[in-house]
C-alpha cells in the first residue's frame, strides 16, 4: 500500500490499483518522474501493522491519517504544496519497522515519519528517525521511554504514556470501589511501567496492592491468574493486559463468574477490542484515549459522520483513528507554522503547539510539551455498557486533561544537534 495519493473517497480498492501501478513505476524509473507535473509534493511516510495481531489497530490509524490528509490537501497542503501519504506494513515487527523506516527515508525520500502500534516498533523507528534526522510522529506505542529515557529531538508522540493511562483511571476506581486491588499485568516493559504507575498512585491515595500476577504476552489461558486474584478477594481486579490478550482474559473472567463477584478495572482499552467482546465479558472500568460519542464537544459529530461516509463497513472511529488523524494534522500544523520542511525547524515549531478544536476533538487543552515532545491529550475513563451494541459500548465517566496527570520528570533530555 504505497503511494497512497488519495484524491477523494477512500475506497481501498482504487487505492490498491493506483498503488500497484505507481509502485511499479517507482521501481523502474527514478522517483522524480512520477511527479513530473507541478511542484514536488511533501511526503509523509507511515509505518503501521496492517497484517498480524495488530492489523485492526494499524488499519484504524491509517484511516485517520487518510482523513487528515484529505483535509490538509483541501486547505492548501503544507506550505502550499500537496501532501502525500506513503504507508508501509511492518506487521508489528520491530526489525521490519526499522527497515521500512529506512525505505521511506532513503527510497521514498519522505519528509516526515509517523506510525507505530507496538512499543517495540516505536522504539526501533525512534532510533532510525534520530539517526537520519527525520521528524517522527509516534501515533501508538505507549511505552514511557519513547518520550522519556530514550527520547530524541526528532520524536513526538500522540498517544498517552503508560503512566498517564494509569493515572487517568486510578482516582475514579479508588473513589468508587475502595483501595484493595489485585493486578494482572502483561510481562513486558509496557505492563511493568503501567503496573508500577498504578501501584504508586494507589499507595499515594492510601490503598494497598493485594497481589500482582505477571502474564506473558500472548497468553491464551488466564485461568491460573484469575484463580489467584479470586482468592485474594480484592475490591477491584485490575487487568492491564491489552489487545487480544485482554479479550481472552475478559472472556475467561466472565466464564468463571468473577465479573459478578467484584468490579474489574483496567488500563487501556480500545474500541477495536470492545467490538470483539462477547456480551458476558463486556463490563468493567477502563480508560480509552478518545471516544467517538462526545455530544458536547464541537466538531466531533461532524468528524464521525465524515468517517462513516468514507468507510462504509459499519465501523466507528476509535482512539487509533484519532491518533492517525491528529498525527498527520500535527505534522502539517508544525510545518506550516515553521514555514519549512526541515525537521529541526518543524520540531521547534511543534514544541508547545496547541491543537485547534477541529483537530483535537476533545474539550481540554491539547498541546505538545516542549521538554519531552509528549502530547498532552486527555484520558477517557469510564465503564463498558454491558448491553450496549457496537458502537454504543462505553460510558465515559470523566475526561481527564493530560497535563494534570502526566509526570513532569520523565528522564528525557532532548538532544538537538548543536
Amino acid at each position, binding site marked *: 500500500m504505497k503511494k497512497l495519493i488519495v484524491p477523494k473517497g477512500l475506497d481501498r480498492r482504487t487505492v490498491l490499483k493506483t498503488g500497484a501501478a505507481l509502485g511499479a513505476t517507482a521501481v523502474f524509473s527514478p522517483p522524480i518522474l512520477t511527479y513530473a507535473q507541478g511542484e514536488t509534493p511533501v511526503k509523509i511516510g507511515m509505518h503501521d501493522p496492517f497484517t498480524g495481531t495488530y492489523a485492526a489497530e494499524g488499519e484504524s490509524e491509517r484511516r485517520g491519517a487518510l482523513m487528515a490528509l484529505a483535509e490538509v490537501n483541501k486547505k492548501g497542503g503544507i506550505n502550499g504544496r500537496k501532501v502525500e501519504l506513503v504507508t508501509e506494513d511492518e506487521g508489528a515487527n520491530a526489525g521490519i519497522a526499522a527497515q521500512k523506516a529506512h525505505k521511506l527515508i532513503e527510497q521514498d525520500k519522505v519528509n516526515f515519519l509517523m506510525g507505530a502500534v507496538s512499543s517495540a516498533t516505536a522504539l526501533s523507528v525512534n532510533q532510525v528517525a534520530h539517526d537520519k534526522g527525520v521528524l517522527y510522529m509516534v501515533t501508538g506505542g505507549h511505552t514511557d521511554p519513547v518520550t522519556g529515557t530514550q527520547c530524541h529531538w526528532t520524536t513526538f508522540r500522540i498517544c498517552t504514556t503508560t503512566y498517564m493511562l494509569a493515572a487517568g483511571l486510578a482516582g475514579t476506581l479508588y473513589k468508587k470501589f475502595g483501595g484493595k486491588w489485585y493486578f494482572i499485568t502483561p510481562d513486558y516493559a509496557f505492563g511493568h511501567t503501567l503496573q508500577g504507575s498504578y501501584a504508586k498512585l494507589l499507595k499515594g491515595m492510601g490503598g494497598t496492592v493485594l497481589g500482582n*500476577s505477571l502474564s506473558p504476552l500472548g497468553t491464551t489461558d488466564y485461568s491460573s491468574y484469575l484463580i489467584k486474584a479470586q482468592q485474594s478477594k480484592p475490591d477491584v481486579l485490575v487487568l492491564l493486559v491489552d489487545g487480544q490478550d485482554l479479550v481472552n482474559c475478559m472472556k475467561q473472567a466472565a466464564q*468463571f463468574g468473577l465479573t459478578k463477584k467484584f468490579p474489574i478495572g483496567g488500563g487501556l482499552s480500545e474500541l477495536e477490542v470492545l467490538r470483539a467482546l462477547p456480551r458476558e465479558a463486556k463490563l468493567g472500568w477502563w480508560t480509552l484515549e478518545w471516544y467517538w460519542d462526545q455530544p458536547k464537544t464541537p466538531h466531533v459529530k461532524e468528524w464521525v459522520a465524515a468517517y462513516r461516509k468514507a468507510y462504509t463497513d459499519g465501523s466507528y472511529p476509535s482512539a487509533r483513528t484519532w491518533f492517525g488523524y491528529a498525527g498527520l494534522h500535527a505534522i502539517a500544523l508544525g510545518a506550516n507554522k515553521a514555514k519549512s520542511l526541515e525537521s529541526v525547524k518543524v520540531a521547534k515549531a511543534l514544541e508547545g503547539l496547541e491543537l485547534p478544536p477541529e483537530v483535537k476533538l476533545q474539550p481540554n487543552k491539547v498541546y505538545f510539551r516542549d521538554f519531552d515532545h509528549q502530547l498532552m491529550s486527555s484520558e477517557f475513563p469510564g465503564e463498558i455498557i454491558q448491553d450496549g451494541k457496537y458502537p454504543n459500548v462505553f460510558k465515559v465517566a470523566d475526561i481527564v486533561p493530560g497535563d494534570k496527570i502526566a509526570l513532569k520528570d520523565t528522564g528525557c533530555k532532548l538532544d538537538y544537534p548543536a
Partner: protein
Amino acid sequence: MELLLFNAFNGLIQGVFYALMALGLALILSLNSVINMAHGGFLVIGAYLAYTLIPYLGFWGALIVGPVLAGVIGLIVERILIRPIYKRVDPIYSLLLTFGLALIIEDMTRTIWGPQGLPLEVPDIINSPVSEVYFFITGYRLFVMGVTAAAAIGLYLLLRYTLLGIRIRAGIRDLETTAALGVNIYKLRALNFGFGCIFAGLAGVLAAGVLGLTPPMGNSLIMPSFVAIIIGGVGSLFGAVLGGLIIGLAAGVVTTYYPAASEAVIYLMMLIVLVVRPRGLFGEEGLFE
C-alpha cells in the same frame, strides 16, 4: 495446594487443545510425510466458517459443519498442491509449501472477514460455571474436554475397527508394503489429510469460544502442538494426545510457582525428553530421521 490443584486441572484443559491440534498434525505428519505449517490455517478456516454459519445453523450445527468444511478444503488443497510433492524424498519441501499456504490462508481470512477480532457467541447453556467453589470449571471447558475426548475416541475406533482405519495404520507403519498390497495410497493419504484438517477445524471452533477470532489465531497454537507430537514421539497418535496433555499440565503447574516460565517450560520439557529419550515417549525408530 488448592491452588496447585486448580492450576493443574486448568493446565490439563489447555492441554486438551494442544492434543486436538497435535492429533491432526500427527496424522498428516505420519502418513502424508508432510510437516503441515498450514495446520493453523485450517484451524482458522474452521473457526471462521463456523462463525459465518452460526446465524444459519446455530452453534451446534456450525460446530459440526465448520470443521467438516475445513476438511473438504483440506481435500482440495491436498489434491492440487500436496499430492505433487509426495514423490520428493525430503519432507523439508513440504515445509516450504505449507508455509506458503499458511500465509495465503491468513491473508485471505483477513481480506474476507477483516483484521478486527470477532466474537464467537457460545450458547448460555454451556457458558457458566458449574459450581461456585470450582468456578474455573466452566460448562464450556467441560464441553471442550467432552468433544475432544469424543473426537479422540472416535478416531481410535475408526483406526481400530474400520477398513479405512486399519489401512491408515498400516500405511503409517510401512507405506510401500501397504501400496504393494493393493491399497490406493493416494486416496488413503487424501482422506487422511482431510481427517487431519477436520481436527484442526474442530480445534478452531472450540478455541474461538475461549479466545475469539482473529486471522493469525492459529499461529500461537502450532508450535506447542509440534512440541506435543515430539514429546509423545513421532508416529504415535496416542503419544501426541499424551504429549499435549503433559505440556498443558506442566504449564499449569509451573504457573503456580513461577508464572514467568509457564511458556518456556514446554520447550524445557521437550529438551529434557529428547535428551533422555531420543525419539520421545512412544516414537519409533527411523521415522523422520
